[in-house]
Structures are given as C-alpha cells and as structure tokens.
C-alpha cells in the first residue's frame, strides 16, 4: 500500500496532480450548488414579497 | 424644413423595455407623424430616457418594433439616422473644440456642410455671442447646453428627440428653445420631448403621453 502511494519516488508529483484535479472537479459542482441555491432563495423571497404586496 | 413626398411618420409597436429587474413599460404603441409635438411625461424613473434612447436606436428594446416610414429602424440604420436628431442628458460637444468647431463638425458628420459664417450666425442667435471661439470646456453649464442646442438651428433632420432640453437654461433661453421647437413642428417636423418643467409645451398640435405610475 505504502508502495502504491510512493509511486516509485514520484508520489508527490502524481498525487499532487491527481489531487488538485480531483479537488477542482469536486469543488466546482459544490460551488455551483451554492450559487444555484442562493438564486433559488432569492427568487423565493421575491415571490413572497410580491404576495405580501398583493394582500 | 421637411421636404419629402410622403408625410413623415414614426410608429411604435408593442414596445417593451426592461432595465435591471423592472419592466418599465410593455405593449406601448403609438404613432407620431409630421407636424406633431409629443410631450413625454412621467415621474422620476418612469422610463422616459429609456424610451427616447430606444427611439433613437441607441438601445435595443426587449421586444416590439419602432418603424420609420413603415420600416424597422434596426434595418434602416444609417438611413434613419439621416432624419434623426437626438439630444440626451449629455451635451455631446467636445470641451477642447470651440463652439463653432463643434457645430461644424457635427454638421459634416450629419451629412451636410455648414460654412463658418452660418455657424457664427446661429451661435449668436442662441445667445453665445462673444463665446463662439472659446474651448467649450470653459463655458458654464447653461452655455454648454446652448452649444448643444445650436444644432437644432442648423440641422435639417425631421425627427427631433430631446431629453430634458430645458435643464440648465435660463429664462430667455427656455423661451427661445420653445419657439424653435414650435417652428419645427409647424414646418411639418416631428418633435418628441421630455421635460419636468411646466413650460408652455402645450400648443394646438401637442400630444402628451404619460409613462409609469407612481409605485409604492
């Protein structure tokens, strides 16, 4: 196992590369989720305000 | 002032303009033809400037059409520009050029030549005697506005679109400008004007359109 992570001496480089790639590709959807939720909340709030005005 | 076989006509068809979150107006339709003065009213923020910029072709409306002699102004472009004179909140004059130079260059770009003498005469008429060959950046607010308005006296355009032309003008200049507009309309031209001042824009051939309603 340790040998696997050692990568024949290239561990830092191989895992540095795959790690950042994984990090980016996981972070991007998460950030997107945050952005999506905030706009959804904003639309919901706008709808609520509108209803209150109508009443 | 307006030669041409058919009477000029500007048609606004189901126009809708949106700025930011708000729909300023929608399904706005009306027509203006030669000899008419359209006075656009509305409280602050009702969309007058927006409408005028759309009429000038500077702003792409969300939907709807503006037609000049039956054709969409987006398609006509330079052809429509030949008949149009727009004056916005900005004066559109260069501070480093003199009043005479400003007037002449504007004329040439509008497609006709204006000789030096005529330019001087027009500037005197609008009350800038003695200031004709100063760089306009040294003029006061109202004097700058007068330089911009001098184009009305020189121009041969049919459609005048004027956004708050009376701001910064003193009483004498307001009177003069009213006369100029009325003369243009009497000659068969079209004028579309916004103003908050209750000046005597009301003449025989004046139509008023009120935009917007006071919200909240």
């Amino acid at each position, binding site marked *: 196992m340790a040998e*696997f992570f050692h*990568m*024949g*001496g*290239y561990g830092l*480089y*191989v895992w*540095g*590369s*795959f790690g*950042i*790639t994984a990090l*980016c*590709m996981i972070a*991007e*959807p998460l950030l*997107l989720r945050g*952005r*999506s*939720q905030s*706009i*959804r909340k*904003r*639309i*919901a709030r*706008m*709808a*609520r305000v*509108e209803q209150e005005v109508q009443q | 002032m307006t030669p041409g076989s058919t009477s000029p006509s500007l048609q606004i068809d189901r126009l809708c303009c*949106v*700025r*930011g*979150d*708000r*729909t300023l107006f929608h399904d706005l339709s009306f027509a203006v033809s030669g000899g008419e003065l359209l006075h656009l009213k509305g409280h602050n923020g009702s969309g007058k400037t927006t409408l005028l910029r759309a009429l000038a072709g500077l702003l*792409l409306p969300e939907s709807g059409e503006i037609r000049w002699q039956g054709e969409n102004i987006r398609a006509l472009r330079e052809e429509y520009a030949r008949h149009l004179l727009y004056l916005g909140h900005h004066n559109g004059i260069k501070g480093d050029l003199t009043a005479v130079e400003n007037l002449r260059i504007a004329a040439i770009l509008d497609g006709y030549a204006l000789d030096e003498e005529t330019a001087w005469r027009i500037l005197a008429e609008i009350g800038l005697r003695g200031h004709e060959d100063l760089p306009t950046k040294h003029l006061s607010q109202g004097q700058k506005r007068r330089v911009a308005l001098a184009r009305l006296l020189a121009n041969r355009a049919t459609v005048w679109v004027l956004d708050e032309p009376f701001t910064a003008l003193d009483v004498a200049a307001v009177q003069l400008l009213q006369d100029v507009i009325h003369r243009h309309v009497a000659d068969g031209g079209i004028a579309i004007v916004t103003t908050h001042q209750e000046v005597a824009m009301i003449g025989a051939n004046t139509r008023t359109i009120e935009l917007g309603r006071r919200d909240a």
Partner: protein
Amino acid sequence: MSSRLINWFKFSSPATFYPLARKISVASAVIAVVLIAVGLYMSFFVAPTDYKQGEGYRIIFVHVPASWMSMFIYLVMAAWAAMGLVFNTRLSAMMAQALAPTGAMFAFISLWTGSFWGKPMWGTWWVWDARITSELILLFLYLGYMALRAAIDDPRRGDRASAILLLVGVVNIPIIYYSVQWWNTLHQGSTIKMNAETTMDETMLITMLIMTLGFWAYSIAVAMARVRTVILERERTASWVRELGLAGS
C-alpha cells in the same frame, strides 16, 4: 425543413430548455462518474509502468484530457457566441457563459499537472515551451472573457460584448499558436522539448481516451447545471420562473 427550424427555436427559449438541461445534466453526470472511475482504475492498476519515466508518467492520464478539454471548450464557446450574435438567441450566450469557468478550470489543471510533471522530468517547474506558453495564453483568454462578463452589469450588453471578444479571440488562437511555435523553435538553445514518449502503449492510449470521455461528460454535466443557474439568475422576474415554485428548495 421549416418545422425543424421552429423546433430548434423552441428549444432555444430558456423556459423550455430549463427542464431539458436538468435531464442532460443528470445523465451526463452518471456517465462521467462511471467513466472516470473506470479511467482511474485503469490509470493506476492496469496501465503498466513506463520504462523510461517510471510511475511518474501516470500524470498523463489527467494532464492530456484536461489540456484537450481546455482547448475544445473555448471553440465551443466561440461557436455559441457566433450563434448568439447571428440569431439573437439568448440561450446561446448563456451557454457560452456557463462553459467558461469549466474551460478555465481545465486550463488551470493542465498547467498545474504539467508543472508537476515537469519538475521530476526536467528538474524545473516551468519552461517557456511553445505548447506550455500557448496554454498559459489560453488561460488568460478565459480569464479575460470572465472578467469582461463580470464587469458589465447589464446581462444583454454583456452577452453581446463578450461574444465579440470570443470571436476576436478565436480568430487569434491559431495565430497565437503558430507564432509561439515559431518563437520557440527559431530560438537557439531552447533546452528541453516536450516529446510524446516514442510509441504509446495501447492500454495507455485506451485509458487516456476513457479519461477524456469522462472529462467530456463531466463538462457537459457541469455546464448544463450551470446554465440552469444562469437562466434562473437572468430570468428571475419572468412568470415561468415564478411558476416553478422554488420556495421549498
């Protein structure tokens, strides 16, 4: 013919595209997860150790797909931009807008993994090689596009301005690419060349292909999800958005 045209314009309306985008996004996400999982397994356990570069070469399995995606996405964006300018469809600009961050991210990954490869192979994090330099410039082009978009408040104005920028950029990309190539090769003394190691092993090639397809599916999934957000942001006042009933989520 005409009915096809109508159909096309129907889907170019954000309101109709919104639910469709979700389906595409979910399907692509599933495909991406499967392909990338298989690709990763093959990268580490199936592909053999390179005789020259040892285990270090495995970086290739993310580096090359990321490089390819970064270039490909820019072209797709430019195509959408052109379509938006010609047909004046709002959705096209939104698609370009939705793709940009993903493209920039892949350009960044390409640079990062390239550096992490260069250090053990060449002993330095960076050389001014032609391909590397043009990848850096591509990243700048992405950043320029995104900065311009962010700087313009009015979305419709932003659409048209950034479309012009994309088209100007795409005309320039080949010029930039060849000029950089020329700059580098005409120069004496450029030390090391990035050369694909002789003939590539077949399993390596297949692994790389699988990873590329996985990245591709990932890009589609993310872009579709993002375009949904963009649509909501821009159409938040439209009646169809209100009828979605987002209050709960």
